[in-house]
């Protein structure tokens, strides 16, 4: 019968597509693992580049690891503070159907789609305006802007799942909106908020295009907010661009470190969510 044959063909195509999607993920991870693991050693993780590093001499990428962690932490903290305010405002301080709330949400959706290179270029114009050079602070600002829409929309989503009764109960007891926000909403949504923070951190630490203009690159450890700072994605990019195979190998290792950090965060998120949701009122 025709219609059953068609169903079977389509189902076959669907399963083929699933294999394609999951297969490409595995292929990417396998490539990074196979190429990166042989190049990875303790010196890579514990040393900064020494003289002649880019000609294949000794050293490591500790500067990039530390720089990325510093930059992504700063950016995540900044966008968390800003984002929490906006999310709580949208949840508790305006009517859900108000025109302003719609406008802010649309703006956030639009910001979510803005390419990271544009955040980089915008951050660069800010630096020019403030007469600053590429620096840790510049990178933090660019990454914070990049993370902000993820942060707000994510937190809004988890806060939206707080039972309405809790809000009513809190108001009925005489709490102000701010007290409801901080003592009920934040606490109740805490596991979700942690997830969102880690998600934003993961997005921030992997981004290269936005920090290219704003953070620069250096062989030193991050020391000041106003000095340039190295980052892992750019370490991968720059080392791949050199002609020497030994240095390119190190790019593979740097990519592996980056992937391990990002996947580690992803796993951590899953574990934490299970742990933290024990304290939530359902």
């Amino acid at each position, binding site marked *: 019968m025709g*219609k*059953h044959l*068609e*169903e079977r063909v*389509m*189902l076959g*195509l669907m399963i*083929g*597509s699933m294999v*394609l*999607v999951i297969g*490409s*993920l595995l*292929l*990417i991870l396998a*490539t*990074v693992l196979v190429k990166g693991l042989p190049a990875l050693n303790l010196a890579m993780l514990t040393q900064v580049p020494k003289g002649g590093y880019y000609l294949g001499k000794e050293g490591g990428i500790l500067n990039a690891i530390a720089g990325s962690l510093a930059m992504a932490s700063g950016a995540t903290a900044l966008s968390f503070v*800003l984002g929490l*305010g*906006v999310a*709580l*405002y949208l949840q508790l301080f305006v009517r859900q159907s108000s025109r*302003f709330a719609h406008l*802010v949400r*649309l703006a*956030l*959706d639009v*910001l979510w*789609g*803005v*390419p990271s*290179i*544009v*955040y980089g*270029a*915008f951050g*660069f*114009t800010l630096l020019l*305006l403030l007469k600053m050079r590429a620096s840790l602070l510049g990178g933090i600002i660019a990454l914070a*802007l990049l993370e*902000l829409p993820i942060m*707000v929309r994510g937190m809004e989503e988890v806060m939206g799942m707080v039972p309405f009764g809790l809000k009513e109960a809190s108001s009925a007891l005489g709490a*102000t909106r*701010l007290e409801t*926000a901080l003592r009920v909403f934040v606490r109740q949504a805490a596991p979700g908020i942690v997830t969102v923070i880690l998600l934003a951190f*993961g997005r921030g630490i*992997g981004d*290269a*295009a936005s920090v*290219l203009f704003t953070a620069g690159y250096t062989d030193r450890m991050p020391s000041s907010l106003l000095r340039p700072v190295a980052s892992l*994605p750019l370490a*991968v*990019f720059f080392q*791949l661009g050199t002609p020497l195979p030994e240095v390119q190998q190190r*790019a593979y290792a740097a*990519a592996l470190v*980056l992937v391990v950090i*990002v*996947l580690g965060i*992803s796993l951590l998120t899953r574990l934490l969510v299970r742990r933290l949701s024990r304290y939530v009122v359902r």
Partner: protein
Amino acid sequence: MSAGRWRRLKDRLAGRVMGALAFLVAMLVFFIVVALATRARPLLDIQSPVVLLTSSEWHPRQGKFGFLTFIVGTVWVTVLAMVLAVPPCLLCAIYLAEYAPRRLRGTIKPVVDLLAGIPSVVYGLWGILMVVPFVRDVVTPLAARHLGAIPLLRADNPTGYGILSSGVVLAVMVFPVIISVTEEVIRAVPDGMREAALALGATRWQMIKGVALRRALPGIIAAVVLGFSRAFGETMAVMMVVGNVPQIPRSLFDAAYPLPALIANNYGEMMSIPLYDSALLAAALVLLLIVLAFTIMARVILLHAVRRAA
């Protein structure tokens, strides 16, 4: 001041501050456009935007800035990526939404999310290590032997770095965006409609084709547009495999030079040539405006789709 008044004051104050923050966020896109436009102004004063967008002459040292080559390059790469990505993504989303048992869905969704979390340089690295050699050693010789007569498929670029490689890498990068949005809009179709179709004797696939997909169509279009705008602005991964040759491509195998790559590649020297910084920030502005147009279009379609479903 009584405790109650202090609490109310704090509440009002916090409301104001948070409201101001929300307002700033709402205006941020506008700020970005203004900031980029201000920096692009010196160039726009001496060269009309029309020339900027339609000229393919790019000689920064002679003060000639035309974006056409780069815009065309971006369009080639993005369109190819979408052609490669959309069919498997739709099939995947349909499977996840309509066929997959709960357990399987629960395992596959995180995998798709994981794909979304991989940094773009890692995609680029994968492109250099696997896709480019494959295109160079397998696809290009095959195409040169059998498909040389078709103009769009003339394979005379021996490096492997080009539109085809970057299209493949970019396609994998937009998988998660398209799959997750499409799956969501298909699942939003009311079950009653599915049951009605099934009760009339339709097979599952007939029900999907005639009811679920038709109902979810606007949302699916929005998902594709979102994927398109994501791909359009992607920088690092594309830049690493596309070849970066400023030419109007004639074939899928040619190298190209997309707009984001232009910005990222030249940031180092842009302060040393007059008007170069203006030109690159103007390029960022063009990129932003194109992506904005697509994103807003997708959001409007989605909004209408949601309203119609409700």
